[in-house]
């Protein structure tokens, strides 16, 4: 289903979605993030990409899994705490980040489908925004199977055509959000479809960074486990973990108990994002650590994304958003690292 939407009617559309948590990229101090804005939003024309992708909507940084309560009884009461059945709609999702959600879907699916993730995921509608320009100089989506106009994971795609959006609805969830908008949409003109396609094609041509030999990557990485390469590349790492926190595909988490009242014991079991770049991520209680240094942790990040994930799920666990390059305080650059693996003497 194709429609058009005048940009000045965008806020009208949001008003038609009162039952949803409506997320729109909001600028603060020069950076964008998806925030719940009620019905008072528009997508800023200067929007590039959010610091934290829509991952945070389907897999929040902190969430309660259960509560325990020992009042009066010998045995604690354990109460499952699933997320509320509240629909959410995220506007302005970049194709790399939507595709990333299809990758976290794989992790949280399978034999042990994660009930917390899926409760949110099934309630979340992703409204994409085709990149008219690569949002950053470090974008490399086209190297890892994506594109500035990619549709994977999106429910609706918006393409900016001057003062209006070309609106393509891809899924049933998307249809609901568009049909709720009712008359805010217009009918596309004859050449809108072509014009929209051209936006994506032109943006793709402007993606400057490419991973060399990306097709051989998994094979190249197969022989590199014991290479001194990882020592060389990880020397500057300060273990801050921003590469993986901000990665839209990274899904690792910790589970801890938080005590609210010590006696009688009442508290919550909480899941939080965790990070493979932290030394204690893998450290046994004995002190033994299978990944005891920066080299082994960088190796884990790269091999997980470009080898293990391929073996387990048939895809790179990277969508080329460039965040890990942009935000790394010491300049560790995943594209450079991958390029070097292609050339590395084994």
């Amino acid at each position, binding site marked *: 289903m194709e429609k058009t939407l005048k940009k000045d009617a965008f806020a009208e559309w949001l008003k038609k979605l009162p039952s949803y948590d409506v997320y729109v990229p909001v600028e603060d101090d020069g950076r964008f993030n998806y925030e719940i804005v009620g019905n008072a939003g528009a997508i800023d024309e200067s929007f590039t990409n959010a610091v934290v992708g829509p991952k945070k909507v389907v897999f929040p940084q902190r969430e309660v*899994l*259960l509560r*325990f309560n*020992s009042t009066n009884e*010998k*045995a*604690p009461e*354990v109460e*499952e705490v*699933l997320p509320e059945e509240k629909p959410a709609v995220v506007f302005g999702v970049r194709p790399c980040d939507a595709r990333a959600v299809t990758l976290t879907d794989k*992790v*949280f699916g*399978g*034999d*042990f489908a*994660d*009930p*917390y993730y899926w409760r949110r995921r099934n309630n979340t509608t992703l409204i994409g925004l085709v990149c008219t320009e690569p949002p950053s100089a470090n974008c490399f989506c086209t190297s890892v199977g994506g594109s500035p106009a990619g549709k994977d994971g999106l429910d609706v795609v918006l393409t900016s055509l001057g003062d209006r959006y070309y609106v393509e609805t891809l899924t049933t969830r998307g249809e609901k959000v568009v049909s709720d908008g009712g008359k805010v949409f217009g009918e596309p003109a004859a050449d809108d479809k072509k014009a929209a396609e051209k936006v994506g094609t032109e943006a793709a041509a402007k993606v400057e960074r490419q991973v060399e030999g990306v097709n051989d990557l998994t094979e190249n990485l197969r022989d590199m*486990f014991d290479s001194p390469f990882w020592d060389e590349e990880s020397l500057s790492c300060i273990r801050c973990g921003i590469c993986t926190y901000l990665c839209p595909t990274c*899904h*690792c*988490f*910790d*589970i*801890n*108990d938080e*005590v609210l009242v*010590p006696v009688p*014991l009442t*508290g919550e*079991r909480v899941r939080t994002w*965790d990070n*493979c770049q932290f030394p204690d*991520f*893998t*450290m*046994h*209680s*004995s002190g*033994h650590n*299978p*990944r005891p240094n920066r080299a*082994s942790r960088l190796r*884990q990040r790269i*091999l*997980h994304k470009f*080898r*293990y*994930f391929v*073996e*387990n799920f048939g895809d790179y666990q990277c969508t080329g958003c460039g965040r890990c390059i942009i935000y790394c305080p010491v300049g560790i650059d995943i594209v450079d690292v991958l390029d070097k693996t292609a050339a590395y003497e084994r």
Partner: protein
Amino acid sequence: MSDNTYIPKLAEIIDINEEVGGARAVKTFKTVFLNGDRFSFLPGQCAMLSVFGKGESMISISSSPLVEDYLQFSIMKMGRVTSALHEMETGAVIGVRGPYGNNFPMDEWKGKNLIFISGGIGIAPVWCVFQTALGNRGDYGDITFVYGARTSADLVYREEMEKLAKELPVHLSIDVEEPGWAEFVGFVPQNVTDKKPSPKDAIAVTCGPPIMIKFVIEALKELGFEDEQIYTTVENKMKCGIGKCGRCNIGGHYVCNDGPVYSWAELKKLPQEY
């Protein structure tokens, strides 16, 4: 009942046996489920135990599935959760979720001689397989146990071992000489070399500290064991137990899900990262 795997079932501790005291204390806990919950598992699988307010820890199930009355866990006091467990008394209630992971392929071992080799608290996962083999004694050939610890006071299941020594070969060892110790003195791999178990129609099951496992495998290979005849079980830090939290992997394998049980033929193909 919720099918949410993160929600533990409640279980009462019905018995606690102090196996080892001191800095590396080990206690054996027997638990029964409350609320009519059940749990069926296979030898080698693990359970995620909760001490509410402290957290969770993945622990090998030491009792055999043939025992239906309780689950048994032998636990070294080590981190936050296991220390809290060691403070608990009979009647206390913990959480148990699982079972998780794969199992020892005991059906494939029928008719074979079984050699169990473990060190220290590494006996915990092996004990389940061993007890299951004893319970189905007719299915297997000779059963031998090689077990060692740093000192005689660090031996877990010592009483049980001494009783069993009357029925089958039990070869104990301690790392350094002690007055009154009549059995082997030295490391577990050296005891294996000393006792020379035959690889003919045999399966060896080993668990202990990583360094012990490494040298036990070398000792077994020297004796002529093939990679496919050697099984071990791997431990890594775990939070979810279902292959999602991302930390227990060895290469692309999540130990919680794809392991913890591996033949050496399988394990040697993976990166040495455990």
